[in-house]
């Protein structure tokens, strides 16, 4: 695994190929937009999505926990996809996974999907929070904040960011990414079956494309931003 160390708001953060951020100072893992139950929602509507998609997501999350030995997992919203998908089967699956980490605190912030996907099951043992929480110098939230010159350092999700890359000979690739501005860091969507949206990287200090095994740093050459 090829991760990337960055400094953000004076804190050392690790951008991991598992599509999460590790914050060693607080022993915390940050993940956004997992969209649990999206596969079930599809299947119940007659569209076959293999269940192993979710199993692989959970394995990846487990791998990040094992690699970092984190004590807290902070989910930046949109952990659940839709009410229809929250069947007994899905709930139990998450419960079983949760049971492997009795010592882990899990904090869930509210995303737009949480508003309509029903109660978070008790058995998951998640601590619920509102739209945002402050962790030391950094605000964590689901939605990106409104554009503001005096914005405090913020980490958010929701956007499912991806970048397009090009190379010599007409090569082109599109990959999910971490997006970094001076005071804003956006996480890629964690869930594999979620899709992504190409973002405008012209104002970015840097973007970090994520492959299956590496996080690779890119700067916007055109603006020369960052160093």
């Amino acid at each position, binding site marked *: 695994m090829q991760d990337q160390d960055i400094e953000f708001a004076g804190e050392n953060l690790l951008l991991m190929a598992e599509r999460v951020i590790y914050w060693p100072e607080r022993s915390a893992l940050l993940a956004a937009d997992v969209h649990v139950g999206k596969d079930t929602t599809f299947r119940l509507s007659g569209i076959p*999505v293999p269940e192993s998609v979710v199993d692989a997501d959970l394995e990846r999350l487990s791998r990040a926990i094992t690699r970092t030995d984190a004590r807290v997992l902070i989910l930046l919203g949109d952990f659940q996809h839709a009410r229809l998908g929250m069947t007994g089967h899905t709930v139990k699956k998450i419960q079983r996974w949760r049971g492997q980490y009795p010592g882990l605190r899990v904090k869930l912030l509210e995303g737009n999907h949480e508003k309509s996907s029903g109660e978070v099951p008790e058995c998951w043992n998640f601590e619920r929070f509102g739209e945002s929480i402050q962790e030391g110098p950094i605000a964590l939230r689901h939605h*990106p904040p409104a554009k503001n010159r005096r914005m405090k350092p913020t980490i958010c999700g929701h956007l499912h960011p991806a970048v397009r890359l090009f190379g010599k000979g007409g090569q082109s690739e599109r990959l999910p990414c971490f997006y970094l501005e001076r005071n804003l860091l956006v996480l890629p969507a964690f869930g594999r079956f979620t899709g992504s949206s190409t973002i405008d990287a012209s104002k970015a200090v840097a973007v970090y494309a994520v492959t299956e095994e590496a996080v690779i740093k890119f700067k916007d050459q055109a603006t020369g931003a960052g160093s």
Partner: protein
Amino acid sequence: MKEKIERWFGARGWSPFPFQREVWQSYSEGASGMLYSSTGSGKTYAAFLAPFFEDGISCSDKTGGLRILWITPLRALANDLAAAIALPLEEMDVGWSVEVRSGDTSSYRKKKQLSRLPEVLITTPESMTLLLSYEDTLKNLQTLDLVVVDEWHELVGTKRGVQTELLLARLRAIRPQVRVWGLSATLGNVRQALSVLLGVRASNSAIEPALVTADTHYDLHIESLIPDQVELFPWAGHLNTLMVPAVVEAIESNQSTLLFTNTRSQAERWYQEILNHKDDLVGCLALHHGSLDPEIRHWVEKSINGGTLKCVVCTSSLDLGVDFTPVDHVIQLGSPKGVARLLQRSGRSGHRPGQDSRVTFVPTNCLELIELSACRLAIEEKKLEARTPLEKPLDVLIQHLVTMAAGGGFLEKELLAEVRTTHAYRDLSDEEWKWTLDFVRFGGSCLGAYPEYRRVELDRDKEPNKFVVSKPAIARRHRMSIGTITSDSSMQVRFLQGKTLGVVEESFISKLKRGDNFIFGGRVLELVRVREMTAYVRASRGRRASLVRYMGGKMPLSSELSRTVRLRIAQAGKGVYADREMEAVRPVLELQKLWSKLPAEDEILIEQVETREGSHLFFFPFEGRNVHEGLSALIAYRICQQEETTITISVNDYGFELLSPTRIELDLDRLRVLFCGDDLDEEILRSINATEMARRHFREIARVAGLVFQGYPGAGKSTRQIQASSELFFDVFKEYDPQNLLLLQARRELLAGQLESTRLIKALERIRSSSFVLIQLDKPSPLSFPILVDRLREKLSSERFETRLARMQLAMAKHAGSLYAGSRRANCKIKT
């Protein structure tokens, strides 16, 4: 009745054509069959009047129940057809009612038809399939005598055609004595088209199917508009507006002209250009293409027939359908790419017997002159293209199973037997059937991988052996997505005041911002807002506007034309320029000969050029773009096996380009190994896997199999939670259910359909027996230049993904969504 019909013909001063009598005779002997001709009229009445020649037909009383079912691929023309059919019925006092059922029919009328069908129903394959998804329909089909499939050549070789085969099998099962007649244009394989139409069982029946031709001799005049200075003529491109004045002149010197373009964008652009050049044509120039609102198209069609239009700029949307008598002139803009297409389009003019067809060809780049010359040669040799029928597309079968389950349910054995009577599924194996049934029951072949899946289930309460759709929401959504034509997610374009102009692809609109202008339906429009699959616009005075782009493949040069193009090039190499067109393109070809070479028929030309972009290799097999796609992937794959590099591929109808960051060293020995080698089938398959071709091709399959549910106006948010892109499905299946047969189907369809593997293998054989000519150039030649600018990219790499990425740069995402909540674009949504 017979006398009545003769009298009716007499009263109009007509007498039945011999081919009409032939059809009537065969029909009354109990035969099904097909009537074909390359041009000309009279096919409609030949088929429609056949049942009235049978002894003892009762048609004065309202028999109640459907007698004649007319299936047409063209929904827009159903109303005209209904009028043409109703005419003799009315004048002969037959009290039958004629109705249309299509996407445009009111829901009130549709509901009435569910309980009682008219004697004559005109419908599309999709609407008929939809009708079969209601249980009530079955009992209304017990009086059916005749099914006519109009424009059958349009359906053969497509998934709509397979859908039609399946619904014909259903109709034969419900009503075994029904007779099926197809109407078709002349094809290279009429006999095969007939057997596809009639299916396996009918072909074995006691009564020999009839094959009737209505071809009559007529003269076809093709001439080209050739610019005075061919040097000013572009080497590549598809718009060439240099020719506008000459085209306007040609329009003005004729009574009524159809101007055929190959794409919708081209039609939009030329409509504007003609008006800019000659504004007195306002009011007598119209635009017609498949994305325009049906009402607008209908108005245009009416106006052509009324003789009030001087010219209609159109696409293949007017290739077919009822005849436009006033049209006396056809212009073909750009290469027709196929002999049959040119003949079909030329047949749209001069319909009256004894009148000749006149076609003016307008090349959009100079090399197209070669294609026209080649086309003329193929016509002289009477070499027409065949339409190859599709073999067992499982996505269409999946859709059919759900339709049957929703329409009263099915028993496994019965339906399997019925499906196997079609040509497409005659060889469907037990395993394939089981997988398809499992797919709609369990989501996939491995039980447990798709828990809680629901689509088709056994009817536990009533008949435990019967498969049904028990959830109304699933049946409803299935009905809404019935249809096999690929269309990208489309958005309605509508004025703020409410008038609908047509549809454009969502991917195009999503690249526009509020206030941006675009040209659509012959107008400059400003995008005001986007809401729920509708783009609201207002008329704009601006001049700067983008041209609507449509996805969808380009038509490949047919193999018949490819062969004659090679011949013309080889002739030119020997200094023989066969006609006016070849003479006109001579300066360019001589330049090619000077810089590089004009390959002989048994030579394959390869050019190598270095530019700032990298190292280019151009190969010229002249086999059409589909074959080149497969061939280029194979060669790139083999090169990547031998050295660590990344190759980008572009193709056109003449050849393909392999572009790499560093130079690939070639000599004749290595070329021979690259093109020959063993394990061809296996390596072609591997090269497809190494590219994105299958992933892109999956789009259509995902839609037909009901994986991708398209939004539609008014669907609201309820469907948003179950929307995902076909690419995402492809990736997920590939990773988590690699045995999924839909993936296999994507590869198989690519091979058989898009890459035309039979043609590909023949092409390879030809290449093996040719000699290679490798030429080093310091700038692109006239032949390679068009490939260089007309890009269709495919990529193959043998480098580690991360290594390759590290050399890449961020694209300036001009069209990407903005990050902040405050500054929303007209359309900023997550692509899932």
